[in-house]
């Protein structure tokens, strides 16, 4: 097997020869890409949102709507999965050449399951945010109480000191 050397670094380095003396003599780095871009033949997007199942060409098995009942759908998908596995083993006994349809169904169910779980993540993120805000409020209230107490103690000490000085 012939080994190839690594490709040489891009020749732009020569443009930066006088960078230390004059930072403006060399070209600026390119600005960040926005929107969609192509990388090694694949399309990527800079908008980090979970693409819906239809966009990935996968059939959707749970009802669409504003509020999906996650627990119910997850449980029913689980039951469907078990039934399909059983069907697959039956098909392999009776008509082994027809496995492809069943295997496709099973992979469809798995894709739906994972998509449901992924769409729970924004909910989790908001719940985490709520939890952090609550913790912060609690800590701040605690700090306010501490400061109040210390001020009162300081006032008391000063009064005592004043009292002892006057008594002298």
């Amino acid at each position: 097997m012939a080994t190839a050397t690594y490709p040489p670094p891009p020749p732009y380095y020569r443009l930066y020869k006088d960078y230390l003396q004059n930072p403006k003599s060399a070209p600026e780095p390119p600005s960040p890409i926005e929107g969609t871009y192509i990388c090694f033949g694949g399309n990527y997007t800079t908008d980090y949102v979970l693409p819906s199942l239809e966009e990935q060409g996968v059939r959707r098995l749970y009802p669409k709507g504003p509020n999906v009942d996650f627990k119910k759908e997850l449980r029913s998908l689980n039951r469907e999965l078990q039934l399909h596995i059983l069907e697959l083993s039956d098909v392999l006994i009776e008509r082994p050449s027809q496995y492809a349809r069943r295997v496709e169904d099973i992979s469809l169910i798995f894709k739906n399951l994972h998509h449901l779980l992924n769409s729970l993540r924004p909910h989790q993120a908001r719940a985490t945010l709520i939890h952090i805000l609550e913790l912060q409020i609690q800590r701040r209230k605690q700090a306010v109480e501490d400061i109040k107490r210390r001020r009162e103690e300081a006032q008391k000490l000063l009064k005592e000191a004043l009292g002892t000085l006057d008594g002298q």
Partner: protein
Amino acid sequence: MDIISQLQEQVDLIASLAFNTIGTLQRDAPPVRLSPNYPEPPANPTEDFADQPKLMSAALVKAAKQFDALVAALPLAEGGEEAQLKRIAELQAENDAVGQELQRQLEAAEKELKQVQELFSQATDNCLNLKKPD
């Protein structure tokens, strides 16, 4: 590990159990007689093959039950993105109010600290001035 990652791992576990089960049974099953024209094939299954289907299907069902248990444990408090966003707005408002209170207390305390420090330095100066050098 958080519950959603556990659920995802459980799904992957069920998948791997399923294809392991089907693959092993398909690979190791003893041959069966298909039609009366052909002679009965020599039936010699590998050792302890008889309870493999039972064990593997038991593991699969156990994994599925575990998944159901995890789903039941999801803390999906009420529903609605709007409810959560409303709660976040409320908490932010409360946080701001408490933050301002904290700021006020802090400033008052720092002012008092300065006063006490001033008084203390005056008192020590007086002490030094009154103390007769020996």
